[in-house]
């Protein structure tokens, strides 16, 4: 395996409704920032890959528009995944491992506010038996939360405490969208949106962009911050048929974690992409993370959930945490699909 490092990370501030700018207007400064801080001249970036979904923009081939931000002349090597930007990072990592390139710019973007996200997310379901039921993303997450409570693995109180902790630590994250101090009794007195989920259990709808530059070979160490190495990365998926899954467990996260070598060293912290509060419980169990592991120093997806890049943001935030000397080794996780269907685990370590 080649050493591959996260050389830089850049992101927008996440907001509920970005109406002033187009996606391209938003992408240009963020990738410019990431490339500049990586210390790698743009002309030496070997590969570009991004994650987005045309369903966010409501236009077929909307993802091609993002290429306008890249300066694709002379021609560049470029690819796209209709997934969270974390999977774009995986593709770039594979390309670097294959020895084809020594650097890559990876980004993800979404303006979920353009549509009605709960309804838009219905379109990711199988179009024959599940999608036509009209079930939305919050209702599906509520089914999972109910199953978890019924199994005795969490409670509405614990879920509220998870939301409180994430949004409290997010006060230190200048890019977070929902932050502050909340009281558990007050939150539990709120009505449910879809039982047992209350507003605080659900992620905000966020518009935003994040970008990572990967470096290998001679490019490692050229950047402003210390390189943070990808020691293991793997992604796995569970059935898209929700009826065929035990929603209280995440076997794909467990397997990806084992393959990525989560416990080959001490896990000091984890950035978990758990858009709904109860999902943090499922992920902690799947990854075998004890109480000593700090969860979501950034505030996680409950503080900002930019659809199609919240997972990449977890990797970027984890790398930033290590590069700043706040930890030596940690885990970043990304999810995609309903009820934690697909999961990616990235183990990061400082020098």
């Amino acid at each position, binding site marked *: 395996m080649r050493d591959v490092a996260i050389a830089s990370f850049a992101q927008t501030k996440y907001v509920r409704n970005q109406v002033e700018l*187009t996606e*391209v*207007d938003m992408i240009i400064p963020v990738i410019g920032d990431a490339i500049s801080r990586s210390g790698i001249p*743009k002309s030496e970036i070997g590969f570009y890959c991004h994650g987005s979904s045309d369903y966010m923009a409501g236009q077929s081939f909307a993802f091609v528009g993002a290429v*306008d931000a890249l300066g694709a002349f002379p021609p560049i090597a470029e690819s796209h995944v209709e997934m969270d930007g974390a999977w774009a990072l995986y593709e770039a990592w594979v390309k670097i491992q294959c020895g084809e390139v020594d650097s890559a710019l990876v980004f993800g973007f979404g303006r979920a506010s*353009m549509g009605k996200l709960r309804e838009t997310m219905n379109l990711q379901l199988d179009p024959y038996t599940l999608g036509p039921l009209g079930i939305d993303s919050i209702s599906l997450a509520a089914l999972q939360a109910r199953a978890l409570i019924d199994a005795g693995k969490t409670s509405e109180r614990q879920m509220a405490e998870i939301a409180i902790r994430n949004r409290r630590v997010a006060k230190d994250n200048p890019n977070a969208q929902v932050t502050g101090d909340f009281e558990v009794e007050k939150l539990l007195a709120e009505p449910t949106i879809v039982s047992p989920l209350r507003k605080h259990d659900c992620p905000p709808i966020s518009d935003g962009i994040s970008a990572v530059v990967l470096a290998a070979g001679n490019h490692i160490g050229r950047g402003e911050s210390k390189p943070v190495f990808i020691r293991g990365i793997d992604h796995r998926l569970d059935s898209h048929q929700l009826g065929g899954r035990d929603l209280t467990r995440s076997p794909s996260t467990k397997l990806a974690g084992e393959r990525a070598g989560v416990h080959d060293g001490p896990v000091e912290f984890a950035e978990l992409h758990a858009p709904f509060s109860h999902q943090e419980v499922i992920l902690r169990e799947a990854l075998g993370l004890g109480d000593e592991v700090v969860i979501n120093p950034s505030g996680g997806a409950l503080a900002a959930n930019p659809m199609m890049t919240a997972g990449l943001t977890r990797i970027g935030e984890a790398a930033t945490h290590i590069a700043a000397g706040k930890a030596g080794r940690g885990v970043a996780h990304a999810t995609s699909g309903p009820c934690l269907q697909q999961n990616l685990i990235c183990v990061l370590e400082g020098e």
Partner: protein
Amino acid sequence: MSDKEPVKSIITPTRTEYTYTPGPSAQRSLRALARGKLVGEICPSCNQVYYPPSGACARCGVATRDEVEVADKGTVTTYAIVRVPSENIDLELPYCTAHILLDGADIPFFGLIQECEWDAVRIGMRVEAVWKPESEWGLNAENIRYFRPTGEPDVPFEQFKEHL
């Protein structure tokens, strides 16, 4: 099971709605169009002029902000005579669509050609915009009804081959 007709297809209607905002460049250009002006943007790096402007130079990957007015006449760089009906397009068949390199722009603009025999349309032909009456102008590209031949001499391919 065996006495039933197999299910060969199902229809599952779906509908999503979006609120689209055009961004600063397209907004400025649309406001200019409502005043009868075609305003594009120039790349600060390579000086290419884009109409309509997208806010970025795809060649250089930099933001474009400086406005440049382009002419409402130009040169046909390619065209098609459409004889097949299409959903959502309410035009009498056949009709002619063309890429038109507006004078002052570096990339072609998409327009309809009329007031012309179809077999007379050709690459290099000079055309000009036919506008709706000013009282009907709005914030949309339909302010220009179509383009028609100007009768000027054709432009040799060599002069626009870099702008296809």
